[in-house]
């Protein structure tokens, strides 16, 4: 490989965890019913005015702090002016880099393929989302539910070199937004959208000198992590081909869009035709001071993030790094795990049930943890039944799978089926004696040293009890009898 790619990201993430929108009193909530979460200001009716949602600012500042950015002394908002039907006011209220937005100049460190990766953050700013549009042949529809939803835009330096690195960055950011209670960060709900900048340069040149960088190509509106990966790979290959053809140097700085269906980036406009957004400070929002006390209060309220939880799982709960990594990958899984622990389940046992059994099943069923009926309490009760030998592990697993499939309480499934493990020694002993009477040959063989015949005898007990006898108690009892104790 003669070339190296430089990749920068603009990651937009809706702040979903506020009650209301960023400049409007309308509910901030995803809804399937179009135009149900709207107020006059969301549709730009004449005379309406923006009112800043303090909670959205708080969450934006928290994100800024987590990314080790500098926070401003005063908060300003700006207008970005352009015409589009999804933008009811004809401008978007956003922030520019001067005056400074909620954060500038930070960094994000994360593990990538066993190495520490640092991506520098240019800025993070708070803005409002546009309405969503659907286009049908001869007409289009507009849904203003999304208009005014708080949006965080994060702009990185071109510090990533591969699609995998870029996706890893996005995954870490998604986890941060989820753990910090800022956003569900669900790309299926359109809460995450990215613009990707890609350029390539000769591999032997010094990338710390911007003069060595290639021509920046911006790819707009990539709406899934898979899309980010494919778009970057496509664009790197496209640019390499231009290099090989000798036409790279004549390529102009440009904006392209990612066509998911074609799997191609498509030319939109050149830098020369870039829109002049005519930014100016929003006059309807007076600048307001971000006090040191408030900043401190926000800083103290940052919840423990994935990495901290992972460390705790390893150190305090003595889980393996592998299990801990799986448990913290999604906040909802980690929360589920912690809630199971609250029911006095051993961490290792809980981890086993969740990371290998439950998540495996969800994967198979193509379900999300947020979609399931099962509660941590139900799972804890199920685990308790197994540890108390009331049911076998196999029955427990089957009940769990059925519960995930059919949205039922697994404990209900068990009691409905009358499944109950025979745990009492007396009951098992009765059956063991029956089996031993029926199988004199087996006893002989055992006494001749063929000790693995005991497995056959356990099987016979199971057969008689339809699998309800506790296997280990059965084994112990058989052994005792066979050895004449």
């Amino acid at each position: 490989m003669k070339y190296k790619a430089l990749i920068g990201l603009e990651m937009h993430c809706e702040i979903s965890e506020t009650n209301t929108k960023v400049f409007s009193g309308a509910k901030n909530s995803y809804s399937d019913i179009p135009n149900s979460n709207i107020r006059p200001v969301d549709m730009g009716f004449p005379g309406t005015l923006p009112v800043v949602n303090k909670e959205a600012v708080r969450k934006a500042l928290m994100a800024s702090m987590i990314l080790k950015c500098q926070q401003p002394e005063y908060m300003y908002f700006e207008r970005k002016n352009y015409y589009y039907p999804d933008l009811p006011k004809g401008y978007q209220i956003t922030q520019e880099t001067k005056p400074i937005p909620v954060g500038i100049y930070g960094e994000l460190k994360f593990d990538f393929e066993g190495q520490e990766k640092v991506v520098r953050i240019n800025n993070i700013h708070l803005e409002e989302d546009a309405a969503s549009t659907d286009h049908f042949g001869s007409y289009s529809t507009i849904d203003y539910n999304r208009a005014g939803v708080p949006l965080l835009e994060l702009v990185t330096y071109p510090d990533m070199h591969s699609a995998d690195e870029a996706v890893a960055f996005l995954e870490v950011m998604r986890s941060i937004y989820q753990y910090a209670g800022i956003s569900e960060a669900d790309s299926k709900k359109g809460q995450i959208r990215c613009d990707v900048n890609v350029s390539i340069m000769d591999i032997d040149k010094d990338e710390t000198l911007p003069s060595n960088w290639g021509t920046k190509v911006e790819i707009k509106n990539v709406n899934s992590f898979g899309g980010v990966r494919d778009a970057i790979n496509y664009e790197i290959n496209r640019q390499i081909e231009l290099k090989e053809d000798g036409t790279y140097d004549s390529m102009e700085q440009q904006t392209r869009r990612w066509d998911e269906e074609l799997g191609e980036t498509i030319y939109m406009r050149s830098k020369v035709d870039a829109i002049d957004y005519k930014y100016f400070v929003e006059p309807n929002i007076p600048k307001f001071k971000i006090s040191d006390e408030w900043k401190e209060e926000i800083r103290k309220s940052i919840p423990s993030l994935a990495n901290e939880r992972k460390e705790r799982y390893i150190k305090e709960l003595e889980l393996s790094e592998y299990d801990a990594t799986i448990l913290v990958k999604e906040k909802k899984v980690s929360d589920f795990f912690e809630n199971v622990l609250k029911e006095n389940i051993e961490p290792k046992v809980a981890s086993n049930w969740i990371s290998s059994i439950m998540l495996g099943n969800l994967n198979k069923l193509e379900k999300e943890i947020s979609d399931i009926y099962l509660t941590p309490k139900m799972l804890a009760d199920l685990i308790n039944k197994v540890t108390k030998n009331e049911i076998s592990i196999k029955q427990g697993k089957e009940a769990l799978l059925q519960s995930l499939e059919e949205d039922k309480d697994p404990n209900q499934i068990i009691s409905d089926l009358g499944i109950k493990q025979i745990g009492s020694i007396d009951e098992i002993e009765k059956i063991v004696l029956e089996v031993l009477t029926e199988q004199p040959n087996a006893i002989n063989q055992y006494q001749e040293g063929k000790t693995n015949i005991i497995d056959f005898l356990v099987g016979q007990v199971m057969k008689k009890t339809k699998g309800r006898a506790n296997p280990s108690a059965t084994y112990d009892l058989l052994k005792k009898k066979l050895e004449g104790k």
Partner: protein
Amino acid sequence: MTYMDKSIKEIHEALVNKEVTPEELIKESLSKCHVLQEKCNAFVTILDNAKKMEVTDNLLSGIPYGVKDNYSTKGVLSTGSSNTLKDYVPFFTATSITNLEKAGAIMVGKTVMDEFGMGGTGTTGHTGIVRNPWDLNRMCAGSSSGSAASVSAGVYPYATGSDTGDSIRKPAAYCGIVGYKPTYGMISRYGLFPFASSLDHCGALARCVEDVAIVVDAMKGIDKNDMTSWDSSNIHLYDSLNGNVKGTKLCYIKEICDINNYPNASLELKEHLHNFMNKLKECQSLGIEVEEVSVDKTLLNALASVYVVISCAEATSNMSNLTGIIFGPRGEGNNYIEMMKDYRTKGFSPLIKRRFVIGSYVLQSQNKDRYFHNAQRVRRLLVNEWNKLFEKYDAVILPVGSGPAKTFDDTSNMLDKNTTILEEHLQIGNFGGFPSITIPSGFINNLPVGLNITGKCYDDEKVLNIAYALENKFGYKGQIAKEVKENEI
């Protein structure tokens, strides 16, 4: 017996004493609305089915009033005098109008204005020009033209206005009435169609200082829907009018008031400034100290351009919501760009389009620093200059305009660059958000002229009290337009 030509207090007493009922007042007011409409075209909408309100202790209860057509009024056509909103009926009411409703006031008309408040002539509204009740061949100035005309004609005691450059205070002068815009943010702008948000003020026009005080007392108040509004619950405009101005210090600016600044001065201008100087002497007789001060002429000369740059820039952005997609008559075209273009091309008057072009030009990235940012810098310098004056003086007193109302065919004065400062200085009140009031100060050729008193932010009580004292001294309180009066409206 008529009541609509009386003061609020007089009408209230008549209501309380049951000399007259709110229904009778509505009837009188509506009938005068229709007569005035024939003569002056002051209304976009006359509310013939206006409902009576109970008479309470509130001075405004049961009394009719007018609303400038850029206030959003639920269920009542609100056009901003623009074709772009010619059929727009809002589903929410401006906060200040809701406050008046709560006081028991009765809206009977929506008044014509210059389209969206842009323009100072009263000739650009989509329903036609507004004529001055004192002389039908003259303008009212603008943009609160219909409000000024109707109040001066005695249709009702007061009307709301809005003021981005001088849109309340200039038409008030030309119509011989009182026009007051309080400190920025004292009245919520929620529901006021925006022109230039950092300069826009709500306010009132009435025939005496007491009345604007009563009206603004009712309109004002902090509003959760307007972040620039503030809590003024400790300000009581009407209650603090006592006429006691002894020891008050006023200043006037030489570069604006001295006749020697205007070598080609018309006779009207000479009389106007002469009258102003005489009025200053009357101030002194009340125990007010009046001093002449000097302000850098270069700074003053920049004023009008600063206003154009800032107001056009904000206007072009503020009116980007007018696309005909969500409201307004939808334009025709094969795609959204063509539809928006069609709607805006047909809907806006040429004057507004010119301002949009200027606004876009000064905000373009290659021009922004030179025009927009410099304008903001000069705005700050001018405001600082005025604030310095307020350290020494209670208020600045200046003549309004360069004489009485202009005739429709006379453009000579408007083109006279020499009088620009005189015509435009009220804009400083918008730059700084200062409380500012115009009161009648006499007549030139039987036409009213006015003077203006502007104080520092939050000093509204003081500014109004000075105006109150001067009004009593000058003796032009409660006057009704003579032309109309002679024809017995």
